[in-house]
């Protein structure tokens, strides 16, 4: 009855191949010492699960890290921040990647279950981008308008309410949202809807990429997803202004780093307790320039400006 993990609708073929390769090799959790195929160093597997927003960048981290440290395998899977946090609470993974903060009660639950306090690492930033179809004439939107479109009881249901002229049969706004295990979903609810609920009837996609995909196919759609999933030529990023009357800010690396863009958020990793051994090395490496360049190349915002200089 219980799916081990929900497969993302666009299966990363690399991930599958990686899983097969791993299954053929003896693996062990950090701290264990069985197996061993690389001479002195025992083979180590780090389990990383969580955010769909971060699954691509986490995958590249894992691949690049393996080039430098061949005895360390990092297994990456998505499912949503909530799924990663649930697994961390159960103690079945080493590293949860999330695009939202762990709530106080989740931290308490993790402490109760595993006896260890979750430790948080900020590893990058993301601008939460509002996407529309490329042919939509709208260029900017305010936070209040977004809430009126997405929140329960919000009054905006048609593009004409926003002053946008689309063909008559495309006037009803098609809201594209995320499933409730998504960190992006929770972040949007907390910071744009002010903790109010979403209107029923939104199309709840199971991945960051699918949101952009569906918006690209649907002229009357509006949706939110990570900056790294932008597909120029299919969708358009809207400028967002924090309040009506204030200038709208374009989402991007610079505006996120300068904290001007109103709906930016940190990308986080959580471990159980203070990380040790290879897990600590892995996180330290992610925080170095090498790891941060991968963040920027994947379309997200690194911790420091200018890390991607050659």
């Amino acid at each position, binding site marked *: 009855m219980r799916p081990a993990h929900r497969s993302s609708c666009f299966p990363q073929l690399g991930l599958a191949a990686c899983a097969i390769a791993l299954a053929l090799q003896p693996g062990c959790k950090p701290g264990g010492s069985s197996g061993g195929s690389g001479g002195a160093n025992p083979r180590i597997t780090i389990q990383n699960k969580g955010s769909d927003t971060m699954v691509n960048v986490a995958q590249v981290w894992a691949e690049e890290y393996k080039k430098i440290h061949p005895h360390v395998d990092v297994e990456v899977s998505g499912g949503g921040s909530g799924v990663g946090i649930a697994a961390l609470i159960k103690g079945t993974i080493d590293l949860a990647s999330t695009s939202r903060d762990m709530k106080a009660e989740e931290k308490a639950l993790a402490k109760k279950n595993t006896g260890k306090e979750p430790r948080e690492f900020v590893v990058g930033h993301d601008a939460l981008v509002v996407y529309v179809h490329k042919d939509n004439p709208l260029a900017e939107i305010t936070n209040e308008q977004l809430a009126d479109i997405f929140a329960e009881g919000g009054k905006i249901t048609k593009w004409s309410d926003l002053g946008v002229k689309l063909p008559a049969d495309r006037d009803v706004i098609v809201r594209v949202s995320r499933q409730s295990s998504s960190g992006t979903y929770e972040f949007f*609810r907390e910071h744009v809807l002010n903790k109010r609920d979403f209107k*029923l009837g939104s199309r709840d996609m199971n991945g960051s990429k699918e949101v952009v995909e569906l918006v690209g196919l*649907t002229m009357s759609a509006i949706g939110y997803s990570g900056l790294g999933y932008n597909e120029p030529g299919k969708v358009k990023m809207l400028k967002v202004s924090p309040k009506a009357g204030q200038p709208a800010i374009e989402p991007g690396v610079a505006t996120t780093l300068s904290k001007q863009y109103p709906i930016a958020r940190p990308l986080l990793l959580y471990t159980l307790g203070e990380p040790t051994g290879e897990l600590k090395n892995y996180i330290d490496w992610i925080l170095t320039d090498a790891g941060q360049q991968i963040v920027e190349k994947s379309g997200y915002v690194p911790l420091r400006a200018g890390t991607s200089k050659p």
Partner: protein
Amino acid sequence: MTEPNSATPAPPAFAVRAAKRAAWAVVGEKILEALVYLCGFSAIVFVLGIFLFVFKEAFPILANDNFSLTQFLFSPEWYPTSEVNKRYGVFAMIAGTCSVTVLAMVIAVPFGLGAAIYISEFCGHKTREILKIVIEFLAAVPSVVWGFIGLTVMSRLIVQYTGAPVGVNMLNGGIILALMCVPIIVSISEDALKAVPDSYREAAIALGVTRWQLVWRVLLPAAKNGLLAAVLLGVGRGVGETMAVLMATGHAVHIPNSVFDSVRTLTANIASELGEAPAGSDHYRVLFLIGVLLFTLTFAVNLIADTIVRGIRRK
């Protein structure tokens, strides 16, 4: 659903020969017999075990004061993770599951029965073999691939040809599900038609009927039970399918007004939310309660089918 019949009296000739056999052969046979007996009953054990487990996980929510069964069954408001007001209503998803399944059957039954009739009665030997292989190949396509086709190919076609605002909707899910059900319906209906004795065909042809009259007046009534079983197995597949409908229907909590509306099914909802729900939380238990609901739904379908089949048999 028949009980294994373990106490068949051995014919006398067999008994005489058995007396001469070695002791190990007799013991071996007893062991094998016990194994077969066990296999027969294992189905019942598994079904009961699954039902008990699912029910055990769901049960505590029924005793919870914040939860009302009426709201669960008849409210369309599904807010399991709300910070202000949690509401667990699955009515929209019941409507979603039923509507997508019915639509899929409306498409799949004529196609499936038609194909079965063609394969078993009209086409030549070579065409039959080719068609059967192709149709069985259709059954081997994994459901996530169907979902992918729905999400990318079908949704584009639907937007292009129907002018619907969104391509992922009930129609998309229905078509995908129909394609998945057709192979089952075809192979079981074909078996049912094959099982009609040739003497029926010969008698009918001797009376001078046309081929069409033969199919409509003789074969279909004679194979009624098997055909009904085929359709109901298709319904079972439709209600239980998860991945393809999750991707093709748009996954929106919404009671559909037309075939172009997005819907969410019960199965898709469980699949997308069980991973995040902390074990033992209200949300987790409600998801298991949806499982109990699905169980009841399929049980009802089977029961109705059984009653109908029995009714037909009695005539």
